[in-house]
């Protein structure tokens, strides 16, 4: 009696303004509200609102047989509140159907798990509170930023009381095993749900690619592929960015029609059901422990961390911003909620993503979503902000010039 589990990620970073080196503590606001508002409203029109409408329709039409899960970052919610409150309302409406589960992650969509476990937990706590406040649910399942996962992440999640954690079903980690089962984290009382990357990416990336031999992808064909897991799997985990629906795959590709037809096509086969992550964990037994020998993510072909920590600029920026946090916490600035919120918004993984130099000809995927002309400009801008922030918040008159570099 296998099932399909849909999980959608909703996130928007708070992008930073253009900050010159000579911007001597005159502009207190580092975040580009104008730009962020434009983006939020655009994505709301192209994706969030129509997709939520589609899901609501599905839930009502299928009378509870269709279920799904979301993880909405705190920084995204902040922006919805300010720039597109109707989006938040539609998510609340979805929550009220009882068919939608909300997961937990770091409020600020940060890489804190890699740098500061205490900070990581604080950010997760903040996020849990938000989920309870908005949707009256206490998240039971955890997913880390960009599905970044290694065994220690599972342990951290277990310490925080979660029942399960999501991860990428990376081929080299799985080896001969299949992602279509429930696993457990070694030496921790927590389950592991693995993304079926082949089927997930068929929709998220390949759906409108005419060069793909399976184009066009119909709901029937796709449901058929899902059904062929029968007998050799318990659950097919389809984890994807929610912007697949309308942003990455435009409406004109037929993605909304696909979404509308798919659940019924899956349910045509009476053995199959559609469950939330918590329900999956309830229903199926653990088949094995699954150790992760390396850090994985759901990004790019390598499914590793090189999108955020692949070059020296990124590593340096990350080191410095976390150091800033430690410095803030060790003095009174650490009590100031405004400062801490601003600092944490600088931790959002996107800032470092924009500094990625990995694919120089294949920069398309990275480039489209970057507000900068080049990764170098992203780095320069970020470092200017850090320098200014440090001066402003810590009153450091010692400028961050080459004296520290040498």
């Amino acid at each position, binding site marked *: 009696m296998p099932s399909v589990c849909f999980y959608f990620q909703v996130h928007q970073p708070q992008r930073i303004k253009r900050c010159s*080196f000579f911007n001597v503590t005159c502009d207190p606001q580092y975040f580009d509200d104008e730009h962020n508002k434009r983006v939020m409203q655009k994505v709301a029109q192209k994706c969030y609102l129509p997709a939520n409408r589609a899901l609501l329709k599905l839930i009502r039409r299928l009378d509870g047989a269709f279920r799904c899960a979301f993880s909405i970052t705190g920084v995204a919610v902040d922006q919805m509140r300010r720039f597109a409150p109707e989006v938040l309302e539609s998510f609340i409406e979805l929550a009220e159907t009882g068919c939608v589960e909300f997961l937990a992650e770091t409020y600020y969509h940060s890489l804190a798990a890699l740098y500061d476990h205490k900070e990581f937990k604080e950010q997760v706590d903040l996020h849990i509170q938000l989920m309870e406040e908005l949707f009256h649910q206490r998240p039971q399942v955890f997913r880390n930023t960009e599905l970044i996962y290694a065994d220690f992440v599972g342990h951290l999640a277990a310490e925080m009381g979660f029942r399960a954690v999501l991860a990428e079903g990376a081929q080299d980690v799985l080896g001969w095993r299949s992602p279509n089962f429930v696993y457990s984290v070694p030496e921790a009382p927590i389950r592991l749900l693995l993304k079926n990357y082949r089927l997930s990416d068929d929709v998220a990336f390949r759906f409108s690619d005419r060069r793909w031999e399976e184009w066009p992808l119909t709901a029937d064909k796709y449901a058929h592929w899902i059904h062929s897991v029968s007998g050799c799997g318990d659950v097919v985990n389809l984890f994807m960015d929610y912007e697949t629906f309308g942003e990455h795959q435009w409406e004109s590709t037929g993605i909304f029609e696909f979404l509308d037809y798919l659940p019924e096509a899956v349910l045509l086969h009476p053995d199959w059901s559609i469950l939330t992550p918590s329900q999956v964990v309830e229903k199926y037994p653990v088949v094995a422990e699954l150790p992760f020998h390396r850090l994985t993510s759901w990004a790019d072909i390598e499914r590793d961390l090189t999108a955020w920590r692949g070059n020296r600029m990124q590593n*340096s920026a990350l080191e410095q911003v976390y150091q800033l946090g430690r410095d803030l916490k060790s003095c009174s600035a650490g009590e100031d909620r405004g400062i801490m919120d601003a600092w944490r918004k600088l931790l959002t993984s996107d800032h470092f993503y924009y500094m990625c*130099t990995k694919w*120089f000809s294949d920069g398309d995927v990275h480039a489209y979503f970057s507000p900068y002309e*080049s990764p*170098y400009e992203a780095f*320069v801008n970020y470092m200017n902000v850090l320098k200014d922030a440090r001066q402003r918040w810590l009153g450091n008159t010692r400028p*961050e*010039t080459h004296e520290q570099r040498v």
Partner: protein
Amino acid sequence: MLGWEYPPHISGGLGTACEGLTTALARHNVEVIFVVPHLFGGENASHMTLVNSQGHSQKRLEGRRRGKEAPMSSRRKPRASLISRRFIPAVLKPYLTPESFKVYTASLSLSEARQVVREITTSPGDSEDAASESHAGSEKPRVRPEQYGRDIYAEVGRFASNCASSLSQERFDIIHCHDWMTYPAGVALAQITGKPLVCHVHSLEYDRSGLNVNQQIHHIERFGLQAARRVIAVSYYTRRIVHEQHGIPLDKICVVHNGVYSSEAMFKYRKGKSWPAKIVLFLGRITFQKGPDYFIEAAAKVIPHIPDVLFVMAGTGDMLPRCIERVNQLGIGEHFQFPGFLRGQEVEEMFSIADLYVMPSVSEPFGISALEAIKFDTPVIISRQSGVSEVLTHALKVDFWDIDRMADLMINALVHEELRSDMVAMAREEVRRLHWDAAALKTREIYSSLL
């Protein structure tokens, strides 16, 4: 092909570009006869036939220098055969304005001037006299220095007439000429032989002088570009300016970006102990086109934040005195050095020890020096008003007039070593791809379309 300089005897990027293009064309089975005003010997051009405008080839001349008598080509016209052993003067440089040309020749000492005169060919009208002169075996200068070698247009005309007379009997399919000084020669040759003419624009008078264009040069440019069957520009930027300035239709102008001339031997020079921690390099002619004044203003903003920085401006040019004065006026003289025009190994050494190369060009058709800096692991800040900014992704880019932004980028590049090393690592990869082969293939395609 008509050019006027070839490595190692060069005064700018043009000769290097021609070398790169011709070597790559040779690799792709295009036979090139390359004509320059003057052969010095020592040019490494085994991949093609390199001749001066009388049709004397490099090999033939070297043979002569060793005392062997080379046979006269029967293909030459009678008039030309009377003019033997005359070379177009070395004073013909591609970047001189007529004014600076006068200044340059005035600055030669009398003996140097005599040397130049000895080498100078007579104008066509004087050929009979020259013939009688050579028969008399006299080496005495017939005319005083002031009377020729001072008018650049006469030089251009002389080059044209020599090419027309000595080359019209050569066998070739295409005439390809580089920049304005060769256009009259190209047009003449095209008219005589009926072969298609391609005019290559490496730089324009507009780039060199902005609004104060020298009308004669501007006119000669237009003359050549209009007569050509096809125009090749080194960037989309230049193509647009050719269209706007000279009214050449866009579909007549092709773009062939300059590649990078790959050289195998690249030494890593070590910075001596006496050098300061941070060196920012400006390398090029100190003239309006290259934006040296913007470099200086930006440097002034950087210095308060980076105490031990040194700005090196390597090159010579008409703006040099003004730049030195401005630097002194700003009181930043101790952070500047002006080593003059560098050649060969000196250039390599300079690129090597610099931490950052800045090219703030006001109008740069290509900017090959930026690619050369990268070969030496030096990161670059380039002006958006340059052709190279169209092809180079791994660099910091800035509008030449945005001094604040230029300073912002310079400071960040100097402070953050990780930024420099990441940029260079990626840029080297990119530059490797910008082979001259791509340029040669495109050029060959253009040739094919005209035949």
